[in-house]
């Protein structure tokens, strides 16, 4: 628009973004109003261009951010499928043409069948499955907490996991279409985003925990004799891993405030219907996130942020001055951390948003409504 003084044709104006903005949205950043008044020679062409744009309205489509997000997610799934298919096709065809590789393949196949036999007979005989056995078959991202404090991990579906020290979690970058599988060694508190079509499975040593959207804690250290599953909200089903043929095939359903202790040595499931009566469990609960109340009634936002900081051991940076008079009434129970932040930002209004990077959270806001 600096060279608008050289414009001669109607096309010049039509193509000028600031001119378009002025006509279509009445946003006059470049003072077109004044400019037209000062350029009487061009006034006719300008008027014509304006009429053209007014006659050229196009139906708009505005996809919501959610729709775009889900489109992005399905694109990642497509990418994963395509990459898998390609690796198989291109490489295998090339390699197969070489007889030398064919003999290697034969040996490899033999080895593979041996491993299969081993997995099916020997492992099930000893009955112990470790984290390493579980994750080796899959391409996964691994989160290890070597620090002395619990650490937050968010997953691609919006779920969050608070991982205890000396614990590991493996998960795919993008979950499959019909299920979400993660692998745990150690202890973690899970808050799962609700999606009935994609059940969420936690593989932990010899047991598999299945949920659709809820919060619970699993404690499954490789060197401890028991595995514990403790439910805070929702409904959880626990099975033994199918690799163990000898274990009694049994499914245990757990409701809120119920727990399960699995004895690894003799494959027994012990359901605990009153967790306050179990001293070991009651002890874990005293010091953890489950104790924190996420029900807020007319509470200042900085208080809510402080609660989240303590619960998830994160740091939240927010415009203190702008949010100092904001109070919220909301329930954040049973929501993964990203969901909690989203709800807060939505309640604040004014296009408030958040950025999350590891345990650092930044709230962008211009104050509340």
């Amino acid at each position, binding site marked *: 628009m600096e060279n608008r003084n050289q414009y001669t044709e*109607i096309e010049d104006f*039509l193509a000028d973004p600031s001119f378009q903005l002025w006509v279509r949205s009445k946003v006059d950043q470049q003072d077109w109003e004044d400019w037209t008044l000062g350029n009487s020679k061009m006034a006719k062409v300008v008027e014509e261009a304006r009429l053209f744009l007014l*006659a050229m*309205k*196009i139906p708009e*489509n505005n996809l919501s951010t959610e729709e775009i997000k889900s*489109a992005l997610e399905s694109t990642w799934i497509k990418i994963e499928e395509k990459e898998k298919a390609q690796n198989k096709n291109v490489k295998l065809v090339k390699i197969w043409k070489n007889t030398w590789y064919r003999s290697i393949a034969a040996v490899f196949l033999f080895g593979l069948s041996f491993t299969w036999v081993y997995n099916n007979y020997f492992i099930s005989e000893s009955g112990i499955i470790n984290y390493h056995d579980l994750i080796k078959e899959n391409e996964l991202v691994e989160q290890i907490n070597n620090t002395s404090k619990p650490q937050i991990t968010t997953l691609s579906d919006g779920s969050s996991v608070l991982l205890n020290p000396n614990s590991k979690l493996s998960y795919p970058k993008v979950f499959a279409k019909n299920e979400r599988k993660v692998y745990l060694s150690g202890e973690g508190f899970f808050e799962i985003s609700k999606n009935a079509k994609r059940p969420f499975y936690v593989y932990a040593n010899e047991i598999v925990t299945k949920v659709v959207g809820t919060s619970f804690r699993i404690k499954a250290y490789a060197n401890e004799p028991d595995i514990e599953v403790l439910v805070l909200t929702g409904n959880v089903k626990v099975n033994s891993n199918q690799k163990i043929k000898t274990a009694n095939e049994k499914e245990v359903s757990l409701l809120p405030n119920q727990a399960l202790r699995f004895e690894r040595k003799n494959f027994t499931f012990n359901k605990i219907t009153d967790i306050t009566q179990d001293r070991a469990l009651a002890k874990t609960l005293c010091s953890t996130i489950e104790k924190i109340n996420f029900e807020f009634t007319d509470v200042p936002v900085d208080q809510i942020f402080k609660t989240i900081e303590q619960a998830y051991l994160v740091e939240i940076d927010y415009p203190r001055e702008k949010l100092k008079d904001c109070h919220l009434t909301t329930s954040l129970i049973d929501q993964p951390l990203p969901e909690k932040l989203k709800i807060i930002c939505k309640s604040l209004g004014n296009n408030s948003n958040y950025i999350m990077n590891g345990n650092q959270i930044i709230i962008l806001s211009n104050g509340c409504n």
Partner: protein
Amino acid sequence: MKNLTISCDLTDDSILWKYLKMGDERAFSKLFEKYYNHLVHYGNSISSFPEKVQDCIQDVFTDIWVYRQNLDESVVVKAYLLSSVRKRISRLQERDHIFRQTTSIDSINFLFDFSIEYHLITDEETTSKVVRINALLNELPPRQKEALYLRYYQGLTVEQIADNFQVNYQSANNILHRALVKLRKEWKHEYLLILLLSSNIH
């Protein structure tokens, strides 16, 4: 607050494109989120199957990521995306045509009708002029309409439109120019006539 918003500068397309080429997933996601809506809009203007449109666009992005190493670094991202979507939709429609055994060669047809920004118009005189221009615009051949849409709605340059239509610069320029010349001629003609008539009455 100020130091927090600095990161927003990373929205520059060519930088994001470069990062995408290096395998940065966040750059990919940013570009996706930035242009998905535009692409769906364009796709729906040339295909009447909204679901297939979204599918095609996701396929375009899938290929961009899978073959990112072969991407040209110097492209104008938006123009590149629009023309990739056009190619894919046209390929899909050609395939459908073969199955239906129809003979149409140029399978792409611009489907949108231009409408009128009534809420921006306050006086009757402007309304009647705009209504007339609008009618003339909608009488243009689909290709000319599409060119106008790409030029003045999506903001592509003439070169980029030529690329998109797979014709040379001169042809693209002609398509656009012809559309406007025809429009202005007819409109002016009519307008003068109306002026003359109304002055006679007085």
